[in-house]
């Protein structure tokens, strides 16, 4: 064994008490990162592992507003068994029309599900939907409310609820649902008479391949073959694409927040190592006296830090690896899919690398200072002047920091975003550090207070070995994150609460038949005279060519070219829709009658470099047509109403089968009556209550905020660990002050007051900094990323900061209590 190892092992006999801060900080940071990474992997693994169940087949062919024709059906069947399913929104109401709910109808055939198992809850009258027997989601039974055996009205028929759904294997793969599912047979679906030309439904054909083959290649082949006829293709390897992307992005964001926590923890690591080495100064000087070199000293303590860090990292990884199981157990119902319980080596390895690199980055400076301890310290105490570490150590530190950044950027799906976040965090780190140094400087140059306690408190901020700057950074980062979250959340909540009631209608009505439009208006008007009803024609279609180039040849699609993604909602209008503004070209005359013209969204136009005069090709209900771009519009998406990216001029679409959508604004009190009248009078119309949707969005955002806050809490916990460590490090000096004050007649209350003043000053500074930095970051996210109006709830932000600052003060004072109880005589002997 070499000398450094031998000496390191001997030195460790002294126990690891001095390295507790390092252990706690590293453990917290790594556990947080490993937890987030493992959970994201566990959800993705579940999606991967159950890809064919979630998709409902190996390949899914999907088309809107029509069913496959005979030729297409035969082509699909050639690949393997094919199961057909049709999904559409519809109102389901109690037989007596006393209550109704927007539901998702899903017709299934006898082959369904091709993969996985469909199960009903106990008490079902039939195991599957057959005839006019439907199996419904428990949420529907709760909301209407009804029991198994009761009947519901859907469209023009009445269905018996023959059971409640327990497991619907392909539910996640079908994306966002407006309401609970009603599973029914094709016969029952036809009986509802909701499938009409122009009504909004999606037909899915899931194929179970006869022979195992490369599904990706097959799906690409099918895509290029069927894209022109509006088909969308998915395969089992990319089932639940939206959910996957969401999990990915959220995981990414939480990882970045976790990385911030690790940086805060790093400060604790640095402080922990510094105070631990400080306790060993005499041993270091002695070793140097007997001939140890600086590099041996650095190696000897680096080895110990490495061993302890490794242990802390392993402990953090163990907890992180267990997070999917813990989250699955605690919050399983809130997750879209249960996390797949397994150990995920990649996120664990990345978290371990982050942890060890952070330990290296933050312990190198104190370690190199230890190497420079002069053996002459044995004879006289010396305070090491503050100085930059040597060039080699500095290079190593920069290397470790750069490696952390490189891993974060390299493993990110959006490297630019990660790099931006890291740059922002680094800038904040440096700014906080500078402010911390400034606080020390200002405290030193302030005129001396006549009040002893105030003088003592201010003196503590700049005394030698004071940790003011480190505390400002550590607690500042944590509190800044909290302030930012409060600002973003309050802005969004504010947006939803304030904007919705003012500009939003009470209902959206979908699928109003062309021939029902007048009756619809009069029905609503009768129930709520003066109600404001706005109707727009609605149909769906796909953009097939851009300036003559097929969209299939544009891959990858330019960012922002959302109008090219699958089939989109289309409308036609004679006048410029409310809330829209022309930014290029001209709106057509109201009585326009000529070749097809369209007006498109500004963002999509920018992405595709489209200008008035360019031509787009469309496929609408199987009919191809070309239209010239007449104008480009800026759409106010915040306005709740109908916002269409593509609007046609009158004349082109009127002949195609289509339906209408409507917004209805009326006094809230009239909502139930209108709802009842529409549901019973128009079986095919779906009625969505805006308040329910807003509530749903608020709920989703609330869950997101909880996840982000949990990650921010790890940052704050690390910050608090740093604070506790700083208090412990300055304990000797504080004990000395307290004992001297007691000797001079100071009471415990006075001593506590001096400390309270110190921590209150510190807390106030940190809270103000967090307010400034959090507001700046929050403003950026709200106005630049979400592109929302700036309306934070300052009360909530203030409360968040006050709670954070008071918490800091409390912990600081709690840490001071043992000092208060010190007996002067005893303390003087040991000092």
């Amino acid at each position, binding site marked *: 064994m070499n*000398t450094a190892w*031998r*000496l390191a092992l*001997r*030195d*460790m*006999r*002294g126990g690891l008490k001095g390295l507790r801060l390092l252990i706690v900080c590293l453990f917290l940071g790594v556990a947080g990162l490993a937890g987030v990474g493992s959970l994201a992997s566990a959800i993705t693994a579940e999606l991967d592992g159950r890809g064919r169940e979630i998709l409902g087949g190996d390949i899914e062919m999907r088309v809107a507003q029509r069913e496959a024709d005979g030729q297409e059906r035969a082509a699909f069947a050639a690949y393997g068994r094919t199961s057909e399913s049709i999904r559409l929104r519809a109102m389901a109401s109690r037989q007596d029309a006393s209550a109704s709910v927007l539901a998702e109808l899903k017709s299934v055939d006898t082959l369904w599900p091709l993969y996985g198992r469909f199960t009903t809850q106990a008490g079902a009258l039939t195991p599957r939907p057959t005839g006019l027997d439907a199996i419904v989601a428990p949420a529907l039974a709760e909301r209407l409310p009804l029991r198994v055996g009761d009947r519901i009205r859907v469209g023009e028929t009445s269905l018996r609820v023959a059971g409640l759904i327990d497991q619907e294997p392909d539910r996640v793969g079908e994306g966002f649902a407006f309401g609970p599912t009603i599973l029914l047979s094709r016969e029952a679906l036809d009986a509802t008479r909701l499938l009409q030309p122009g009504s909004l439904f999606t037909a899915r054909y899931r194929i179970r391949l006869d022979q195992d083959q490369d599904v990706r290649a097959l799906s690409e082949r099918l895509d290029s073959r069927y894209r022109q006829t509006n088909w969308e293709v998915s395969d089992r390897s990319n089932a639940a694409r939206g959910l996957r992307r969401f999990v990915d992005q959220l995981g990414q964001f939480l990882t970045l927040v976790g990385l911030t926590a690790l940086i805060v923890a790093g400060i604790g690591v640095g402080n922990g190592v510094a105070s631990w080495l400080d306790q060993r100064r*005499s*041993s270091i*000087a*002695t*070793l*140097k*006296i*007997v*001939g*140890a*070199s*600086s*590099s*041996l000293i650095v190696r000897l303590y680096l080895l110990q830090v490495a061993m302890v860090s490794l242990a802390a990292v392993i402990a953090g990884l163990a907890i992180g690896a267990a997070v999917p199981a813990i989250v699955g157990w605690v919050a399983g119902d809130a997750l879209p899919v249960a996390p797949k319980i397994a150990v995920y080596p990649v996120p664990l390895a990345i978290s371990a690398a982050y942890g060890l690199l952070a330990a290296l980055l933050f312990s190198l400076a104190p370690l190199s200072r230890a190497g420079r301890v*002069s*053996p*002459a310290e*044995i*004879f*006289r105490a010396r305070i090491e002047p503050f100085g930059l570490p040597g060039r080699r150590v500095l290079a190593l530190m920069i290397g470790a920091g750069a490696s952390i950044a490189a891993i974060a950027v390299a493993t990110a799906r959006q490297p630019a975003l990660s790099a931006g976040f890291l740059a922002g965090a680094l800038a904040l780190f440096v700014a906080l550090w500078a402010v911390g140094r400034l606080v020390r400087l200002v405290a030193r140059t302030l005129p001396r207070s006549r009040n002893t306690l105030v003088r003592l408190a201010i003196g503590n901020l700049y005394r030698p070995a004071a940790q003011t700057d480190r505390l400002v950074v550590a607690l500042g980062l944590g509190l800044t994150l909290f302030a930012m979250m409060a600002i973003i959340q309050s802005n969004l909540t504010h947006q939803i609460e304030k904007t919705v009631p003012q500009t939003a209608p009470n209902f959206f009505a979908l699928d109003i038949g062309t021939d029902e439009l007048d009756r619809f208006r009069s029905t609503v008007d009768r129930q709520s005279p003066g109600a404001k009803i706005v109707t727009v024609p609605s149909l769906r279609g796909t953009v097939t060519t851009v300036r003559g180039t097929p969209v299939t040849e544009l891959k990858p699609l330019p960012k922002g070219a959302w109008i090219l993604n699958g089939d989109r909602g289309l409308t036609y209008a004679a006048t410029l829709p409310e809330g829209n503004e022309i930014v290029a070209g001209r709106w057509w005359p109201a009585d326009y009658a000529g070749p097809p013209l369209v007006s498109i969204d500004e963002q999509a136009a920018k992405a595709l470099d489209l200008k008035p005069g360019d031509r787009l090709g469309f496929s609408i209900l199987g009919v191809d047509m070309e239209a010239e771009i007449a104008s480009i519009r800026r759409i106010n998406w915040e306005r709740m109403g109908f916002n269409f990216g593509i609007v046609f001029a009158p004349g082109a679409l009127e002949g195609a089968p289509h339906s209408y959508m409507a917004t209805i604004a009326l006094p809230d009190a009239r909502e139930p009556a209108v709802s009842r009248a529409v549901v019973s009078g128009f079986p095919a119309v779906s009625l969505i209550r805006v308040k329910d949707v807003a509530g749903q969005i608020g709920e989703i955002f609330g869950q997101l905020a909880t996840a982000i806050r949990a990650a921010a809490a790890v940052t704050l916990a690390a910050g608090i660990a740093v604070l506790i460590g700083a208090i412990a490090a300055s304990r000797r000096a504080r004990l000395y002050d307290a004992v001297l004050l007691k000797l001079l007649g100071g009471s415990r209350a006075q001593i506590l007051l001096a400390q309270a003043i110190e921590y209150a000053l510190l807390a106030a500074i940190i809270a103000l900094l967090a307010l400034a930095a959090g507001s700046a970051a929050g403003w950026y996210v709200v106005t630049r990323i979400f592109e929302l109006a700036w309306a934070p709830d300052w009360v909530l932000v203030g409360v968040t900061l006050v709670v954070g600052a008071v918490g800091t003060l409390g912990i600081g004072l709690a840490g001071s209590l043992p000092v208060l109880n010190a007996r002067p005589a005893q303390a003087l002997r040991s000092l």
Partner: protein
Amino acid sequence: MTSAIIDASAVTLALGKPPARVEILRRIDISIDRGDTVALLGPSGSGKSSLMSVLSGLERADSGRVLVDGLDFGTLDEDALAAARRGRIGIILQAFHLLPTMTAIENVAVPLELAGAADAMERARAELTAVGLAHRLDHYPAQLSGGEQQRVAIARAIAPRPALLFADEPTGNLDAATGEAIMDLLFARQGDTGTTLLVITHDPALAARCARVVEMRDGAIVTDRRAA
């Protein structure tokens, strides 16, 4: 080759920054012969410990020349000084300064291990036996009395057979009887090994046991005499 193991001339040392700068050593000239025993006497603050720091390479002089065993300490950096001390210089301190996490035998073995000796443990055992601590080999410093700790420190300083042995107030933390016994041991070991001994002390009785007595005041040597 000269018989002087230490040859220092015009050595100055100052600490602190202006205006609080204090001159600790003022142009000291001193030469010490191989195998000699020298007592360095003087009141607190006279510069004794600082001179010892400079002569043992723990601190570098601001100016002047320090030749120790043929090495010019002024030309060596800190690590080269540490290497120069290894096996050449032993130091005994008033506060013992044993490594608290190591046993007696390990404390004595450290300088031998740092010098790369393969038989470090055997030699440490022999050295501790020679200072009468064969029964305390595996005790930690906290489990030893003050006198025992200082004996371990002496064994640690002597084990590498240094050409030079420095002792800074070696009995300062001990009662009179124990101090006496320690000095007996120190001089006996010095006699056995023939090393050069430089002792810093306030104690005239201890100084009287040395062949040469150098007295310092205000950073300068005021008397330098040989015992009759």
